[in-house]
């Protein structure tokens, strides 16, 4: 009786393993199609090898659990699987010398930031995710970007990427994945933030003249000409061709075509620096 239960359990796990292997195999074939027809690539190049390895393991598990074989046969199959996995790891290691992937999952797990670098050509590209594991090239970074990049999620749908170029100037790129206006119209982030904002040791005043930031007793002023908007969620303030601050709209920010200022909404201020620093949440102050 006990023996039969174990066999039944083995059979179910074996079939599930084979189904998973078949699914992964189809994903790989599907990847070949979407890559050639829609310019889609895996969000992280290592996924290709990871899927191959999991597929091999699932097939091995399915064979072991479903087929009654001799110990010698099992050893041969297991050895073959180890060899194939080793081949995949070697190929992965080799491709890691050509492509470098950097991925970051949003705090709510719904978005994936993906940046890849071709180590041969030095081309670095920002990718936008599609269907969870696929992505499409969106924007190319300057050719003189240094390797080190800092990623900070300012909200569930806003990621700030801080990087340095060869001349040591600091730049910021903001990846945005949402909207605060119901998705029906374009709006200027700068105009929406008009008013006075306060946070811990920080005050921000935004008006038609520009943006003034007072942090730790030091005040900086930025004209609107020195701002760069990303999507409809963030602007980067620039000074001397360098990024200085990023201002992003929090999830509770309500974009209003009548420019009505809601007292309980927040924005986030994030200084552009390669040092470790935390974003500062600012609260709108009543006029």
């Amino acid at each position: 009786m006990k023996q039969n239960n174990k066999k039944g359990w083995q059979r179910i796990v074996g079939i599930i393993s084979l189904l998973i292997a078949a699914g992964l195999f189809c994903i790989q074939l599907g990847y070949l199609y979407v890559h050639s027809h829609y310019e889609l690539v895996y969000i992280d190049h290592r996924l290709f090898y990871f899927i191959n390895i999991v597929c091999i393991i699932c097939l091995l598990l399915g064979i072991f659990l479903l087929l009654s074989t001799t110990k010698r046969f099992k050893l041969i199959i297991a050895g073959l699987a180890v060899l194939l996995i080793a081949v995949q790891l070697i190929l992965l290691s080799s491709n890691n010398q050509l492509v470098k992937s950097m991925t970051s999952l949003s705090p709510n797990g719904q978005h994936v930031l993906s940046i890849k670098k071709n180590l041969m050509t030095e081309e670095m590209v920002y990718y936008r995710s599609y269907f969870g594991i696929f992505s499409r090239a969106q924007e190319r970074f300057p050719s003189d970007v240094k390797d080190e990049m800092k990623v900070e999620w300012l909200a569930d749908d806003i990621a700030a990427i801080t990087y340095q170029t060869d001349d040591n100037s600091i730049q910021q790129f903001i990846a945005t994945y949402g909207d605060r206006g119901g998705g029906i119209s374009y709006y200027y982030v700068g105009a929406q933030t008009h008013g006075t904002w306060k946070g811990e040791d920080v005050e921000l005043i935004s008006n038609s003249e520009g943006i003034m930031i007072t942090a730790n007793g030091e005040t900086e002023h930025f004209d609107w000409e020195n701002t760069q908007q990303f999507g409809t969620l963030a602007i980067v303030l620039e000074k001397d061709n360098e990024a200085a601050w990023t201002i992003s709209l929090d999830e509770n920010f309500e974009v209003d075509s009548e420019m009505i200022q809601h007292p309980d909404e927040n924005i986030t201020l994030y200084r552009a620096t390669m040092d470790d620093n935390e974003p500062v949440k600012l609260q709108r102050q009543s006029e």
Partner: protein
Amino acid sequence: MKPLLLGISGLMITILTIISFIVYQKPAFFMTSPFEIDITERTADPADTGEQVQEELQPVDYNEPISYSLQNNKLHLTYDSGEDWTEVPIETDQLFAGDYNGPEQELIDNSYVLTEDRAAFLHTDTVNPEQERVMLTYSTDKGETWEESEIASPFPGLRFRKVDFLDDQLGYVIISGSRTMSQEYSTAFLTEDGGETWQQTNSPEETRLIADGGFVDESTGFLSLGTISPEAPTLYVTQDKGESWQLAEFNMPEEYEPVFVIAETPVRDGEQLTVTLNQGPNGDYAGGLVKGEFISDDNGETWNFSKEVEPDETE
């Protein structure tokens, strides 16, 4: 059962391993390049450094006597294959402002008119980004004097832009903006005084992204909508200078129904109108570049299939 399972497993492993070896040392299998957007162009601004070397101007199109150059962060025109140059009083940033992230080595297609009789350039007024205006700077004397006319104000997030003149007085501008995801606002403007003043037409109620548009005479114009995953052409036609717009009807042969999905700008061919329909960004019929030609005998309200057109026949 056993041979089948082992056979299928072996086949799967073999295929995966072969693919792995085929893509070995091929970064292109894991990386693609963006079509048009380059963060470099947004962040680097050599004009501000004051250190750039002035390049000798070279025309963008060597095959035509009338051409332009965007070198040295200025727009220059030549009417004699680059012998003499005239500077256009527009900042190059203004030519590419708005919802545009493509290359800036050449002017945006259809955003300018450059003929013996007229040079006209659509651009924005970026003095105040919050009140961005769409302007037309034009000259009818080969750049000796320049005029500037306001077309729309304010017009945030300018994306699609097209200007053309049907004769020395009659012209049109079609622009779109305020894009969010796959929706935007599209509208057309007409001039009957050579570009000095512009009258805005009404717009179709639909807000999908505009693909193309144009007028074929002073009353008849077209707006083609739907650039993202279109399944059928969406072509609006007006026959009263844009007062009202109707959806044109395509009598599409069944075999072409999911194939030809984006209408280009119709052109007049005698008493008839002709339009080519392309396959959109995902089309793969006969290589994806073959277009369908349709003909209208009722000034653009209904269209009947004429023939397939090879890509080189339409150029």
